């Protein structure tokens, strides 16, 4: 596979660093999506009820 970083003019170390950083953001995003999704499903009826009953 072609070294994307090299094509863009960066060293192998720079490419690895970029992949790690962007990968960490992506992983956090996926975890948050799933985690908050479960939280929203669990709490949504209660929140809607609380807001509607007020």
């Amino acid at each position, binding site marked *: 596979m072609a070294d994307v970083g090299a094509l863009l003019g960066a060293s192998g170390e720079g490419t690895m*660093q970029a992949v790690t950083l*962007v990968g960490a953001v992506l992983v956090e*995003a996926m975890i948050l999506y799933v985690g908050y999704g479960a939280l*929203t499903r669990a709490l949504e009826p209660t929140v809607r009820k609380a*807001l509607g009953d007020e």
Partner: protein
Amino acid sequence: MLEILGIGAPTLALFVGFGLLIGILFGFFGMGGSFLVTPALLVMGYPSRVAVGSGLAFVFGTSVIATLKHRDLGQVDYKLGVLMIAGTTLGIEVGKEIVLHLETLGLAGNIISVTYVVLLGGIGVFVTYESLKGGGGGGVDHDADAEVDGDDIPDIAKKIQSYRVPPMISLRGGISVSLWMILGVAFATGLLSGFLGVGGGFIRMPALFYLIGVPVPIAVGTDLFEIVFSGGIGSFLYAMDGGVDLSIVLPLLAGSALGARVGSAATSIVDESEIKVYFGLMLLGGSIAVAIREIGGYLEMPVFDTVSLVLILGSALLVSGMVIYSSIVEIRKESVTQSTTAD
């Protein structure tokens, strides 16, 4: 003092809270990420490279979450998204070349600032005017799969849809537009995006609605889908030079992920025409803020930077507050209607 990720607890709380605010706007309108984060980081004293790189990484993460949420609601048109990416990428390249050419002439800074202020302000005035006028641009159907009512399509979009140059592309919402028109709009928005050095959500989302006639929820979802790619590539390029700081991005993302859920869910509850006027005013606030910052730079008075930031944050707080307020009002109305029906 307690430190997490190498930053103090108050800064961490500030980032999470700020992320929540931005997430609501991002989830609801499909824009507002780098436009808000980068200036805030610059005023906090972070170097430009870190402010821009971390801003892009944050936009990437938030757009991944918001796109997944909009996908669940059936509000992403992948075919349109891929076509828009192709046209936008070409536009960005041409925009970047124009900037490089202007730089050699020593005119880049001034022309870019003036264009940014005029464009942001112009779109702000247009959106506010259309919302206050009602009718044409105001009506929005929240059902992504419903056929678009002819009255809901803006006049400019009707004109663009009337050019039936083959091949014609069928889009969600039952509309059909020439491939060349889509690529033309994508190229134009990419050109502006590359020229101004911004993600371009504030240009693309209104362009998808006003120029192509895509229903607003699908325009937002498709715009977010495109930002996943532009934000991902942008943050990768900055990360190679150490421009992405995870101690900024991770807490911002933790807040915005929750905000994006609230904002995306609100698109199915709130009548967008109520909110659109605030969206227009936020863009106007943003254009005035950029103008103030430029004047501050010209006069060498840093206090203008702070005024600019307060104006941006104030506008964002106002609009996200309105999204939450309108959602609560709608939920209460729904609850009253259900109780009445049950009685």
